[in-house]
């Protein structure tokens, strides 16, 4: 047939018939590629940001010197590199003062990522540094100034070498959250090490090589490096640098992928709705061309080629829209981002194009394919029913498409499953509702005198169509609720983990006799602190009388290790029992409670016995419980807890954590002078860094939520639009017969609001189920039912659908009935 698809499309476009379908497709491609590009770039940015915690893009660490050849190879591969060396050593000042410090020697290039800061007075303001100390100079931790009784420009000695104190060491990007056994920091130049003579073969030291460059170069180099690594040489990842950040990033990524997957489903639904309406409106068109000789094959070819052409145009437009969406996002977001993200690559647009093809084939084509079967008799009898009923195979095709798209998009079958479970609930309950409405018999006749009876009659008369609509509405509302719930619980959890007054300083090595004095000093200063926890250094030796391996170089989970032990009569704050029982107060038996990951690493269960060496005394204790705890809480946390009476005889120190504002930090100078043996660890910079990242991730999540809300809103509009023709037709006739405006709008409002009420209810049930699966299986969070979502979901459903429905049908009371009927 020579009438080309192009001409038909052009004519349809002029006639306004294509608008909705094109819009839905462009939006589908736009939202999917836009969100995908945005999340890809955001992930890039966040990964870069997280590299700050390594001070590089890749790091190798070892207890022995690392080969210089690696640095040369890094240079060949186009990477920058730096070296650091950390070790404990005594620092001397004058004749009387000395202190065991944690020394870190850095090369000029350090840090490659993130910011090194210094200060000009202990615990004072931080100033960004361009490089570490020059040769012959050192930066000292704030508390060393009191402990060594030195000031800036004084001299300190490390090993055989004197150094000039030029600054206060404040923060390093890779200082991390681990501090046990570390003394206060001294930063020095890497090349000064030989002169000190303190690093000898066998010393407890940590050598690091740091590398940074473009993502591709780092990948090439890492691939080269991996096989070179020997025992004791370890490539570090962000996870090891900063677990709370990697956790936040992983969950944020899950959220963004979830959002994108929901966008795919919403887009599919919108396209299906638009195509269905397009197809319904084209029935007359097809009837005419069939009456003058077009065969079903010719009609199918015409619509298939039109659809293909439409797909190409819409995909191109959609990719453009997607590019614009991500660009606008980043424009809005630029100020909050610490680093400029690189390009997102072509993948997001490929995903957009694939979404478009899938939507066209699985959602748009089935209703259009039926146009080929439209009866030409419609030219004589317009009241003939449409070839509408979608076969089960169409729904299965659509479902399969949704599953595959979501799975491909998220790469996570658990996430796909969670959303599917919710969708299954809406469809199942929705169909149940349809059967109830249809089987209920004719409850009421259409009574034009009564607004309620009119609405109810309408609801029942279009039972199946209404049920389908309820399913669509509830799918859209469910997805929005799921996103809202997950977002809220994510952000809530982050905020509870790190509230504004989260502890940001730790205090260790408190002698038992110092506890009362420190307690009163802190309360006099108004410092809010956690409880004092006793701390005993012990070594885990055996499990069920089986001796563990003792080497430290081997990557062995079940090995002997030094560990901090504590005691407590009650279950520590924020800990939860996952197995076994807590002991009764005053118990003096040899019992122990283990943290769950620790127990898992060592393969220990409740009832096992574990052997320890505390000082030189062995201790065998039976495991009575396993605990889960929150490592990100910045409170003292312990792998192993014993009954107080059991450990009372062993020498112990105490620790606590507390919150201190920057302005109050000068207090620490006085404190350290009074309690010189107590170690104070500043974590405020780390806490701030973590909070900063979490704020950015939260902002991104909120932005994505807004976009998905818009997409969901469009599906709702498309869903309402799909049913408007039939309702307008009836209303126009009632209007022509003299029905008042209030009656028509009122009954429409009741009808739509009732649909919305049902949809909101189904959506809430389904959302709870999806969220439970998502939080438990995907996000590794604890699930608790959300009470407020029930009234919210149901009322919002009624309100939104009710007002959208009335808004869409308003024309029926503002334009003459003849105009309305003619246009339908």
């Amino acid at each position, binding site marked *: 047939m020579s009438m080309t698809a192009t001409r038909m499309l052009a004519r349809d476009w002029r006639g306004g018939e294509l608008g909705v379908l094109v819009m839905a497709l462009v939006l589908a491609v736009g939202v999917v590629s836009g969100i995908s590009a945005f999340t890809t770039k955001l992930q890039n940015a966040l990964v870069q940001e997280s590299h700050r915690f390594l001070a590089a893009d890749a790091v190798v660490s070892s207890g022995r010197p690392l080969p210089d050849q690696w640095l040369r190879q890094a240079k060949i591969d186009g990477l920058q590199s730096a070296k650091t060396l950390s070790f404990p050593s005594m620092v001397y000042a004058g004749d009387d003062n000395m202190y065991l410090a944690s020394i870190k020697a850095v090369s000029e290039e350090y840090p490659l990522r993130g910011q090194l800061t210094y200060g000009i007075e202990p615990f004072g303001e931080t100033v960004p540094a361009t490089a570490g100390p020059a040769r012959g100079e050192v930066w000292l931790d704030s508390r060393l100034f009191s402990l060594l009784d030195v000031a800036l420009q004084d001299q300190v000695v490390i090993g055989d070498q004197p150094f000039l104190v030029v600054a206060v060491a404040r923060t390093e990007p890779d200082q991390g959250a681990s501090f046990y056994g570390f003394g206060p920091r001294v930063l020095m130049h890497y090349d000064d090490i030989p002169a000190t003579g303190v690093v000898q073969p066998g010393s407890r030291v940590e050598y690091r090589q740091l590398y940074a460059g473009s993502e591709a170069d780092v990948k090439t180099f890492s691939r080269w490096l991996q096989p070179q690594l020997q025992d004791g040489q370890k490539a570090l990842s962000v996870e090891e640098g900063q677990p709370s950040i990697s956790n936040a990033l992983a969950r944020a990524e899950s959220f963004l992928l979830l959002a994108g997957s929901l966008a795919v489903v919403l887009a599919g639904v919108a396209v299906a709705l638009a195509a269905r309406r397009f197809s319904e409106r084209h029935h007359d068109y097809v009837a005419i061309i069939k009456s*003058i000789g077009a065969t079903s094959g010719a009609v199918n070819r015409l619509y298939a080629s039109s659809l293909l052409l439409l797909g190409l145009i819409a995909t191109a437009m959609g990719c453009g829209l997607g590019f614009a969406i991500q660009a606008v996002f980043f424009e809005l977001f630029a100020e909050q981002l610490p680093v400029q993200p690189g390009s997102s690559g072509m993948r997001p647009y490929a995903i957009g194009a694939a979404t478009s093809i899938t939507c066209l084939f699985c959602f748009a084509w089935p209703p259009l394919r039926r146009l080929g*079967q439209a009866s030409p008799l419609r030219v004589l009898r*317009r009241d003939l029913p449409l070839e509408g009923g979608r076969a089960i195979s169409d729904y299965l095709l659509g479902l399969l498409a949704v599953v595959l798209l979501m799975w491909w998009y998220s790469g996570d079958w658990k996430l796909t499953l969670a959303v599917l479970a919710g969708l299954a609930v809406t469809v199942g309950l929705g169909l149940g509702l349809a059967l109830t409405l249809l089987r209920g018999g004719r409850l009421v006749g259409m009574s034009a005198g009564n607004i309620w009876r009119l609405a109810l009659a309408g609801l029942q008369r279009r039972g199946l169509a209404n049920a389908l609509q309820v399913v669509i509405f509830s799918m859209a509302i469910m997805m929005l609720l799921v996103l809202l719930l997950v977002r809220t619980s994510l952000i809530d959890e982050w905020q509870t983990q790190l509230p504004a007054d989260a502890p940001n300083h730790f205090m260790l090595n408190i002698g038992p006799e110092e506890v009362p004095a420190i307690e009163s000093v802190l309360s006099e200063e108004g410092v809010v602190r956690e409880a004092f926890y006793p701390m005993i250094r012990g070594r885990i030796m055996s499990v069920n009388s089986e001796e563990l391996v003792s080497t430290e170089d081997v990557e062995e989970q079940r090995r002997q290790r030094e560990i901090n032990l504590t005691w407590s009569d009650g279950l520590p704050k924020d800990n939860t029992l996952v197995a076994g029982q807590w002991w009764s107060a005053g118990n003096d038996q040899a019992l122990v409670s283990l943290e769950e990951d620790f127990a898992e690493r060592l393969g220990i269960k409740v009832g096992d016995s574990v052997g320890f060496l505390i000082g030189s005394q062995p201790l065998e204790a039976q495991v009575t419980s396993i605990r889960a705890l929150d490592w990100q809480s910045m409170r003292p946390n312990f792998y192993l807890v014993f009954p107080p009476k059991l450990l009372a005889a062993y020498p112990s120190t105490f620790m606590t954590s507390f919150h201190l504002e920057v302005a109050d930090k000068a207090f620490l100078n006085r404190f350290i002078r009074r309690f010189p043996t107590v170690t104070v660890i500043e974590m405020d910079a780390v806490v701030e860094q973590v909070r900063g990242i979490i704020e950015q991730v939260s902002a991104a999540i909120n932005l994505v939520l807004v976009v998905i809300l818009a997409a969901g809103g469009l599906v709702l509009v498309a869903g309402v639009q799909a049913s408007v023709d039939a309702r307008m037709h009836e209303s126009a006739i009632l209007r022509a017969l003299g029905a008042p405006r209030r009656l028509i709008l009122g009954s429409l409002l009741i009808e739509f609001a009732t649909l919305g009420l049902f949809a909101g209810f189904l959506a809430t049930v389904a959302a709870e189920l999806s969220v439970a699966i998502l939080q438990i299986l995907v996000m590794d969070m604890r699930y608790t039912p959300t009470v407020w979502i029930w009234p919210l979901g149901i009322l919002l459903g009624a309100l939104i659908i009710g007002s959208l429905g009335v808004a869409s049908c308003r024309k029926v009371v503002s334009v003459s009935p003849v105009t309305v009927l003619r246009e339908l």
Partner: protein
Amino acid sequence: MIKCNNLQKRVPIAGHELEILKGITLEIKSGESVAIIGASGSGKSTLLGLLAGLDEASGGSVTINGTDLGTLDEDGRARFRGEHIGFVFQSFQLLPALTALENVMLPLELQGQSNVTEQAEHYLKRVELDARLGHYPLQLSGGEQQRVALARAFASRPAILFADEPTGNLDSRTGDRIIDLVFELNREEGTTLVLVTHDSALADRCDRRLRLDGGALVKE
């Protein structure tokens, strides 16, 4: 030319079958003009739909120029319509997205003919619409739209023209002009005309009248 033998149409309604046509037998000769008249609901449009191959009979047969429409599937009937049949409808049934010229070109394009533009222009000129080739249906009056529909119907040179209440949506003066045109073109092209109408004056202009009552042919 058109032979119709014991033609029946039944439709299921609320659990039982409603008989719309109760065994119609008739014959229409080539070149003849026949009016089918009858009250609303007598089955006129149903008969027209069956004679024109737009619908399938529940019993009996329709044979046009020796082809039994009952032996053709929907695509076969579509091809048959394209080659042998033209239509004029009460509600014009022009495609709103196409111009007058494009509407007339459509059946010719469907038949894969050449020179479709020239042929279409010729027939639009014949119905005196050569000045309105580029207009869309909504930009034309009812009479003009029906003239475009006439041009479209005759452009494919059908052997039979079926007209369903062709003046039903027009005022009487415009309706008269359309009917004049229908008969003129009918004569010029030697077409068989089958016309469904309420209008007895219009029916009188045909060679023969067939009256339907309650789904059966009755003698006048």
